[in-house]
């Protein structure tokens, strides 16, 4: 159907988007790669020549590296576990006939539209404040000592805040997947006397597997990069310094661009490994 003329027109129409994205990807990427091999301290003498792989080895061997990796993993895995498990349960519930389904759906989705700085601040002050927070009131009501959440249970608190933001995303996608499930199959299984858990395990869960994989992959990419939630709550203190936050601090706070860039390259490689799996799934769907 496509003529030669329309093909070249198509190429011209694609050009701006492709060129812009190519520039957006390559220019900073090459600069980050370049800096990562330099001794570059903007406030202490500027660019001081080649560093070889020093920045790479120093980034990994610094005492804050492994704790940051651990923190990142705990946050990502914690949020994934909470959002996927509760996402499935809520999706199954919302799929049932209920009164006011549309309104409940809106209530559940709402946190997704709250900007990250707002949700972090609201949770930090109005819920987790050890003196005036709602949790403190609740704890005192039951005769318990209020907890200073963001310093004594910092990881749990961050996971809680981020999960609240991402639960709507998981729920919405899983709900879309649940709704495409063929109900005849389930009814047949029910008539054959298969108990609820078995029906869930052998019919519902396999049907959802693709959606679950996509939720996990997309969320992982965004969760690896969470920033505002840590920036406004703990500022990386109390063991909440993730890998991205560590790189941010190296680059902008301690102005060691070489070291931070090496960290950035690690982060880019990590994100790409996950992205490859996501691309495969999305790519298959294109055919």
């Amino acid at each position, binding site marked *: 159907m496509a003529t030669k003329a329309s093909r070249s027109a198509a190429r011209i129409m694609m050009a701006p988007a492709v060129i812009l994205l190519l520039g957006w990807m390559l220019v900073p990427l090459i600069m980050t790669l370049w800096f990562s091999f330099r001794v570059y301290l903007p406030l202490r003498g500027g660019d001081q020549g080649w560093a070889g792989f020093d920045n790479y080895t120093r980034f990994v061997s610094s005492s804050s590296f492994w704790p940051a990796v651990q923190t990142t993993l705990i946050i990502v895995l914690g949020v994934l576990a909470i959002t996927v498990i509760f996402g499935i349960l809520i999706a199954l519930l919302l799929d049932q006939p209920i009164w006011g389904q549309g309104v409940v759906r809106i209530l559940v989705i709402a946190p997704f539209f709250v900007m990250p700085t707002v949700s972090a601040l609201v949770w930090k002050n109005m819920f987790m404040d050890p003196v*005036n927070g709602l949790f403190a*009131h609740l704890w005192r009501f039951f005769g318990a000592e209020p907890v200073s959440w963001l310093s004594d249970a910092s990881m749990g608190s961050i996971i809680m805040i981020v999960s609240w933001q991402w639960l709507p995303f998981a729920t919405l996608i899983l709900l879309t997947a649940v709704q495409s499930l063929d109900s005849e199959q389930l009814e047949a299984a029910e008539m054959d006397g298969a108990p609820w858990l078995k029906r869930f395990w052998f019919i519902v869960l396999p049907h959802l597997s693709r959606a679950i994989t996509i939720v996990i992959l997309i969320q992982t990419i965004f969760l690896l990069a969470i920033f505002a939630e840590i920036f406004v709550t703990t500022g990386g203190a109390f063991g909440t310094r993730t890998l991205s936050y560590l790189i941010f601090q190296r680059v902008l706070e301690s102005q060691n661009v070489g070291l931070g860039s090496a960290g950035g390259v690690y982060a880019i490689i990590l994100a790409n490994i996950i992205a490859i799996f996501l691309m495969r799934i999305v790519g298959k769907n294109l055919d």
Partner: protein
Amino acid sequence: MARSVTPRRKLINTTVAWAIGLLIFFPILWTILTSFKSEAEAIAAPPIFLGFDWTLENYRIVMERSDYGRFLWNSIIIAGLSTVLGCIIAVPAAWSMAFVPSKRTKDILLWMLSTKMLPAVGVLYPIYLIFIELGLLDSRAGLVVVLMLINLPIIVWMLYTYFKEIPGEILEAARMDGATLRQELIYVLTPMAVPGIASTLLLNFILAWNEAFWTLNLTAVNAAPLTAFIASYSSPEGLFFAKLSAASTMAIAPILILGWFSQKQLVRGLTFGAVK
């Protein structure tokens, strides 16, 4: 897979679903309620839910003290312009990929998506440096460009999936009748594509409005949007719950309302057509 159930079962489901929905929504509800309290009522123990003296005082103080209008205007300009600009660049690209696909179309689409996966923190310093060199730091123009670029892959993808659903025969018929490429684009495609483009604009406006890495790192005073306005409340002296709530409510209200309209497009936009 919705099925018919007994009324008793439906009642139980409804109760549980509403309880969960209200629990999830509660932090937002609580913020909105607190924004109408006095500072004393906001931290009263035990907490007051509805029986307080409703007041608009906090909104007045926040608007007076912090130049809220400027932050709001920055948010509107940055999110709006970056979205519109993104669409202008993405519509022709998505159009050509949907209607004149080549062997490489799929690779190009996937590659575009992969640029979205680039961790921002990995390229923070280069962008920072480029911004200083070009005098773009703390400027709205700079943020418009950056947010346009980070959302461009999503815009192209969403438009592509919408355009794919437009039957190609209609375009062929128009071409047979002697329509030029330009006419085809303006008179045939555009009217059919408007709903898809509108949804794309809406979702990307929301994403740009809430973006909180580049907006926090590349602005100081002049170009700071609402994300930065709220972050300024994180300092201990800003710890006034009622005013914080009023500021938060003003920052999220427009987007909550827009968001409720866009929930159907959300899945398509965020899973790149992989979940339908």
